[in-house]
């Protein structure tokens, strides 16, 4: 096949010198191997190179057919000399056509490479293209063809990376344990290992069970049911994949099912112990991991402990996000331990069940920590005890910049301590105390604290029962601080205007 296709393009050279008229029919003529024949016509004179390697013309009958065609095309009014493409064009087209079988790219000069890439189909098998093509425009075409919406920005600004990450995500999303062949993913591994930096999967399908549809009725106590069928609801084991990706930096997982509709079952949202263990092992083995997110996956204290234990003394981890889980004080205590045994910069335990003891342990860890920048304890229930403990910790901490304590049943005592912190601390830039019961007095105290602070830029006190006046004054102080911060940012280097911040477009996506 390859031989027969290359020869026509080669013969162009010899024939073009004899008569340009016959350019269009070169391939056919070559096949008929009547060298002396001066004129022969092809079926498509205007695009000669698109001619498929002609239907076997070895036989005498086909030769006659060629002649007949020739007669017709010789009188073709549309035919024009100007359309005769260059030999290089022909070669390039041929290369494009046979790229799947004979990928020639690196040997070509750059301008020809570009042409070839522009004409390559996005449907080519990844085995051919993955490690051969670096050109962004090709991968962009691939992405655009497959996904209507894809943000290159979320994938490190590289289309190739975008393509492989989305591709992998897609595979993982639709992987059904014990039904889908795991080789599908593992086969991709050698192709994408150098390009995948992030895995974001918001759905893991459980294995398909025939019985579940049989069991009708309302099963309110799904918890016991999940435990019973635990071995059967294990999800895809990430271990092999994560071990194979040499540049993996971010893992963003949600163990759950999307768009289940009326087929809702509790066990669709099960994060089993086996899942937990395998994930913990995978995470531990991945030394390049920087960001680990496991949200909305019903991670309870035990599972959190298992995961956090595996993350202790992790070299690269910077961000841990376990929001929207069921982590309680023990899990929080484990997280506090992690703070002392890692270089974690961001910890997110929003919407968990952390109470005062957990908060106290976190505060204790925070007091001696010098890495953590952001702590999010939104929608927990640490109450004043935990809040006070954290406030005490912040008196010594010199690193934390963002603290979210929204919806934590905090009240005046915490506010009193925090106002003291505000007057001392110079690193905090953002505090969120919304949805607490701080009260007017607490608000006044916070205002007092704010009057001495020059660094805080955001202080969210919405729905926290403080007097409007003090809230407004705090807002004024914040404005002053912001302006000062802007001036500070401007003076060393111009053009860092905050006004250029992006509009509120992301939330929609």
């Amino acid at each position: 096949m390859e031989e027969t296709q290359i020869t026509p393009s080669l013969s162009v050279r010899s024939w073009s010198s004899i008569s340009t008229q016959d350019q269009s029919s070169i391939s056919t003529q070559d096949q008929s191997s009547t060298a002396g024949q001066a004129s022969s016509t092809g079926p498509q004179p205007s695009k000669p190179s698109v001619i498929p390697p002609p239907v076997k013309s070895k036989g005498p009958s086909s030769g006659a057919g060629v002649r007949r065609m020739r007669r017709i095309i010789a009188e073709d009014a549309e035919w024009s000399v100007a359309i005769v493409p260059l030999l290089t064009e022909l070669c390039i087209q041929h290369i494009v056509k046979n790229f799947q079988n004979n990928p020639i790219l690196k040997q070509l000069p750059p301008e020809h490479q570009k042409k070839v890439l522009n004409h390559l189909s996005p449907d080519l098998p990844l085995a051919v293209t993955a490690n051969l093509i670096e050109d962004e425009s090709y991968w962009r075409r691939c992405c655009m063809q497959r996904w209507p919406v894809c943000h290159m920005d979320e994938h490190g600004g590289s289309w190739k990376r975008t393509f492989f990450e989305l591709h992998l995500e897609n595979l993982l999303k639709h992987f059904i344990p014990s039904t889908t062949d795991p080789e599908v993913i593992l086969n991709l591994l050698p192709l994408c290992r150098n390009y995948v930096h992030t895995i974001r999967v918001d759905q893991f399908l459980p294995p398909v069970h025939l019985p579940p549809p049989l069991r009708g009725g309302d099963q309110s106590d799904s918890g016991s049911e999940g435990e019973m069928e635990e071995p059967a609801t294990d999800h895809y084991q990430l271990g092999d994949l994560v071990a194979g990706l040499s540049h993996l930096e971010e893992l963003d997982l949600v163990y759950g099912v999307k768009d289940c509709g009326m087929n809702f079952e509790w066990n669709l949202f099960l994060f089993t112990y086996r899942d937990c263990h395998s994930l913990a092992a995978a995470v531990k083995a991945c030394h390049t991991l920087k960001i680990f997110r496991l949200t909305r996956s019903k991670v309870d204290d035990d599972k959190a402990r298992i995961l956090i234990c595996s993350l202790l003394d992790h070299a690269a981890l910077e961000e841990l996000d376990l929001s929207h889980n069921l982590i309680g004080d023990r899990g929080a205590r484990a997280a506090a331990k992690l703070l002392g045994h890692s270089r974690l910069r961001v910890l997110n335990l929003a919407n968990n069940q952390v109470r005062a003891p957990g908060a106290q342990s976190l505060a204790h860890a925070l007091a001696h920590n010098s890495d953590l920048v952001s702590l999010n304890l939104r929608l927990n229930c640490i109450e004043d005890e935990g809040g006070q403990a954290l406030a005490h910790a912040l008196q010594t901490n010199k690193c934390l910049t963002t603290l979210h304590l929204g919806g934590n049943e905090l009240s005046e005592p915490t506010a009193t301590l925090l106002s003291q912190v505000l007057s001392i601390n110079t690193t905090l830039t953002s505090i969120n105390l919304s949805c607490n019961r701080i009260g007017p007095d607490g608000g006044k105290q916070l205002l007092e604290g704010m009057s001495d602070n020059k660094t805080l830029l955001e202080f969210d006190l919405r729905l926290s029962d403080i007097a409007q006046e003090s809230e407004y004054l705090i807002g004024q102080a914040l404005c002053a601080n912001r302006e000062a911060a802007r001036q500070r940012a401007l003076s060393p280097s111009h053009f860092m205007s905050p006004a250029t911040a992006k509009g509120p477009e992301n939330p929609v996506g």
Partner: protein
Amino acid sequence: MNPPGSLGVLEEKEEEHLATPVIGPSIHSDNPQERIQARRLRIAARLEARRREALGEYLDGKESEEDQSKSYKQKEESRLKLAKLLLCGTELVTNIQVAADIREIHRRVEEEEIKRQRLEKLENEVKTSQDKFEEITMKWEEGKQKRIPQELWEMLNAQQVHCAGLIEDKNKLISELQQELKAKDDQYVKDLKKQSGDICLLLERMEEQKAFEVEREELLTNNKKKWEQALQAHNAKELEYLMNRIKKVEDHEKQLNKQRIWDCEEYNTIKIKLEQDVQILEQQLQQMKATYQLNQEKLEYNFQVLKKRDEESTVIKSQQKRKINCLHDVLNNLRSKYNKQVKQFQEENQSLTSDYKRLVMQFKEMQKAMRHFALIDDKQFREIWLMNEEEVKDLISRAFDVDRIIHTHHLGLPWTAPDFWFLKNVGPISQQQQKSPTQILEEVLMEAEEEGAEEAASEPESYLDLPKQVSAKTTRKILMLLCDESGFLVESKLLSLLLPLDKSECYLLKLDAIFSALGIESEDDLYKLVNFFLKYQAHHSPPSQERTSLVSPLEKLDPQGEKEGSLVDREPQEKQPPPSPRLIHPNDVLKILEAFVTGLRKPRDFRAPVKLLKVVRDDSKDSAYWKALTTVIPATTLNLWDALYTALEKYHLVLTQRAELLIENSSLERQNTELQQLLQQYLDSKINSELQVPPTQVFRVPTK
């Protein structure tokens, strides 16, 4: 637990936005405080900007300062506006989240409360049912003890009733709980609906904010359009300008090229010229250097010399000064002398003038006397001439007689008396014998006509008159030339008369006229003229070989001409090649004539008085006459006479010697006697005795 989760995601994204903005107060705020703050900030910002500008950011250009401040204001306003918008927008959006949060908290609190109540209730229920159950079980014990079926039945019935009550309670509880669950479900659905409403609201608000985005997009597109239009116009203009500029540039380039080429050529030519100049100048420089060096050396040498000379000159000067002083003295002396001499000479002059006057007077007198004497002299001359002639004739007759005697007596030869013209002449030779130039001319011309045969045998007499140095032929030719060239001197009347005449006659007459015009009166003058011609030719013509050879002998012969050379002298003269008159160019004739006339006049004026005398008497022929008279006796006779005479002389000498000797002898005798007397006298004087050596002793007294 799902809805809060989904909210959480949104909230997270909101948080990201919250982190970004840093918002200042707005001057458009309703709050006066905020406005003040904003203005302060603005002032501060402006001060800052000014400071920065002062620090060195005036690169932006000062002409656009106003624009910049305007745009800066606009930017600041926009920024503040945007910041406010952002803050408000995020607040608006997050408000929903916060509200949801608080609701969730409330729900949780309520839930907890309800849960607690339910648990309590359940516990109570459990307790009561447990009691009831225990009661029942206790009754079971009782029932075992009952043997009476009726009682048992009763009890069983009671038990059944109790059990039924218990079950009923339980069922009631269950239904209650189920109701509660149902209510919860409803609540959940409501919550779901509410949350979906929230989400819808959230989305709405976000969309609202997205409207900003859209508006911004529109604004952007509008602005972009405007900008593009402006840019297009600008581009078109720019292009136009560019084209113009290109045209101009091309023109200029062409001009430049032309100019450049021209300049180049000019430059090249100038360069070549200058290089040549430079080379020449260098050469000159070298030469100058050489000369300079030479000059330097010379000058040095000269300087040295001059120094020495200066020294010398100073010495000389001093000497000269001294000399001058001396000379001054001399001069003074000489002046005084001169004055003296002047006086003396004046005196002398006076005396001499008086002398001169006297002499003039004397001269006049002398002239008178001379005239007188001339007359007398003439008379005397005639008388003397006649007397001498007479005497000569006597002598001749005597010589003839002597000769006859000698011939006849002494030699015994026959003697015939010679017949000469001068022998018949009586008195001085008259003037008529003087030939006029015309006569000579005639002669010459006639002679020329008889040329050839008579050439050699020409009469010597006729040539005696001619100057010896000039041949007749030459003379004739010169005269012919003169005649031809000086026709202007001849009167026209004469010329007309001459026409019918013979050629030679014509010449003759013409020459006569010319001579009379030139003032040639005598034969001498004529020859002078001829000579002059020849001489002039010799002097004025270029010294060709021939001419010099011709002229030099003439010059040599010139002095001889005055000597009245003999015939012997004349012989070589004739042999000289006759000077060819052809050498005299006809054009030169007039010049020669002019020169001659001026030259002739001078000597004539000078000779005027001499002429006077000469006019009176030309004695040129006299000497010839007298000489001829002397040569009456021919040379042979004279030789004879001489020989006779020498013989006689010898004879006479012998005789005279005898006589002389006789006389000497007698005189010696007389001297001897006298000397003897003198000696005797000396010897006798006293002085001899006084002398130590007396001469007497020395002298031997001649003994006579």
